[in-house]
């Protein structure tokens, strides 16, 4: 394992120092407990949007803290959910009197830790609502299992919910919006190589020289099946079918898509994949109204990509277009 770090146990904290040094204009960092919060927090009278999860998915979530997107982010250890004390403190730092919404990716650890934090905050008088994001079609859903994983939709939902909060929407309305967005979003990923958890020191899984893992999770969890690598065109078609037939998306639907790299995939390949996706969407009569192409929710240095589609009406597109100023997503004035 070769990584650009010092002691593996310090990676997360030392990376936070870099974030703080680089983006002091938009965010503040607390180290004990660890969280990132908007420089202007608490924003009086506006709902706070908080997310978090294991580290190793950068720029998710710290790169999305700033006006128009997240109010705060709680980074856990690599691939390990944050703990209730972090979340509680971040909630207190963020709350401007209008309550806080937690956007939580559906993993047992995240769900349990955010649950504890919400209990602590609610009993301390801070209104908290939690929305669980579970958009990964690679995993069979069932009420008897942990359900689907939360993946790429998280980025899109954080942007849109952040805009809604920035506009001054109340906690109930923002929560309803987040739930609707989650219902309208579907994702799937594929890995060409494994990632290596720094403290583990070796790859999480092994893939043969021409094998890929279809339906990979963002922590390197195995997916649907292992296959021989196929041309990009076929991969995009396979994943499109899985995603678009799941909601299902219908001819004429407007969508926002995320064509996401897992961290180790060159941008030239991501744009090629986006070109393929655009072609497939056109064939299916889907209108890609907005898109992101790049590394937005990663798995350390894993090679691979994921695709997310979110069905969107004009109201959602409007929120999408609202100004945003974070380390990794920025537009508008």
């Amino acid at each position: 394992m070769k990584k650009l770090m010092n002691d593996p146990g310090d990676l997360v904290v030392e990376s936070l120092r870099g974030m703080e040094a680089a983006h002091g204009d938009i965010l503040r960092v607390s180290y004990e407990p660890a969280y990132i919060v908007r420089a202007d927090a608490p924003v009086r009278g506006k709902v706070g949007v908080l997310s978090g999860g294991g580290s190793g998915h950068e720029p998710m979530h710290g790169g999305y803290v700033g006006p128009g997107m997240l109010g705060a982010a709680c980074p856990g250890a690599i691939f390990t959910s944050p703990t209730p004390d972090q979340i509680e403190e971040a909630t207190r730092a963020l709350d401007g009197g209008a309550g806080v919404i937690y956007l939580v990716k559906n993993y047992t650890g995240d769900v349990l830790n955010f649950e504890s934090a919400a209990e602590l905050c609610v009993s301390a008088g801070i209104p908290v609502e939690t929305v669980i994001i579970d958009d990964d079609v690679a995993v069979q859903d069932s009420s008897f299992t942990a359900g689907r994983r939360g993946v790429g939709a998280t980025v899109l939902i954080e942007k849109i919910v952040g805009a809604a909060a920035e506009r001054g929407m109340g906690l109930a309305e923002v929560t309803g919006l987040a739930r609707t967005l989650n219902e309208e979003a579907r994702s799937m990923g594929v890995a060409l190589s494994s990632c290596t958890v720094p403290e583990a020191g070796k790859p999480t899984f092994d893939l043969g020289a021409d094998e890929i893992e279809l339906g990979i999770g963002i922590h390197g969890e195995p997916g649907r099946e292992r296959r021989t690598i196929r041309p990009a065109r076929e991969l995009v078609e396979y994943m499109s079918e899985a995603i678009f037939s799941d909601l299902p998306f219908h001819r004429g639907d407007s969508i926002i898509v995320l064509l996401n790299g897992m961290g180790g995939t060159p941008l030239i390949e991501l744009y090629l994949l986006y070109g393929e996706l655009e072609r497939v969407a056109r064939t299916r009569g889907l209108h890609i109204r907005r898109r992101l192409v790049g590394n937005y929710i990663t798995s350390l240095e894993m090679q691979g990509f994921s695709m997310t589609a979110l069905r969107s009406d004009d109201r959602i597109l409007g929120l999408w277009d609202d100004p945003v100023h974070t380390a990794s997503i920025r537009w508008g004035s």
Partner: protein
Amino acid sequence: MIRCEEIMAWVRELDLVYQSNKASLTELDAAIGDADHGINMVRGFSAAAKELSEQTPPDIGAILKALAMILMKKVGGASGPLYGTFFLKASMTCNGRTSIGAEDLVVLFEAGVAGIRQRGKAKEGDKTMIDAWEPAVRAMREAFSGGGDVSEILRAAVSAGESGRDATISLAARKGRASYLGERSRGHQDPGATSAVLMLKAARDTLA
């Protein structure tokens, strides 16, 4: 008689045990999870051994509660809240007590496991740590009813826990991260059930 002394020894032993099993627990987790279980446990119990040696709480309930808080803060993931809940619920059975006996010990573990069950909503057969814990506490209660002492009770717990842990190998996961794998999770031993048995063994070696 189990005194604060022994409980503290248990915590120190857990720190050592998870350190020496860090790689193997992480490898089990790599196969059906995200390759961090050993790392998580070490982070939690190293901090616990260190912090508890500094603050030395006055009674068993206080030690276990402090331990619970440290685990909740340090471990994260699924196992953090679950082991945290285990010790929190366990601590409530012995508030203010500076020594406990065989039956107290059984009650302590039963309460802890009930906490895990309630928190994680897993049942036996879901391929989680519950598959080690449930048979273990049943065996403890049985051994106690049969007149067993602390040592016998804990030995029964270890052996039942081991069987439950081994049984996870052939199961398909229905809870936790491994459940995303469904059928593909069969053939792999659950990391949490493995760390649970290590906890029982450490108890056997330090409390009896």
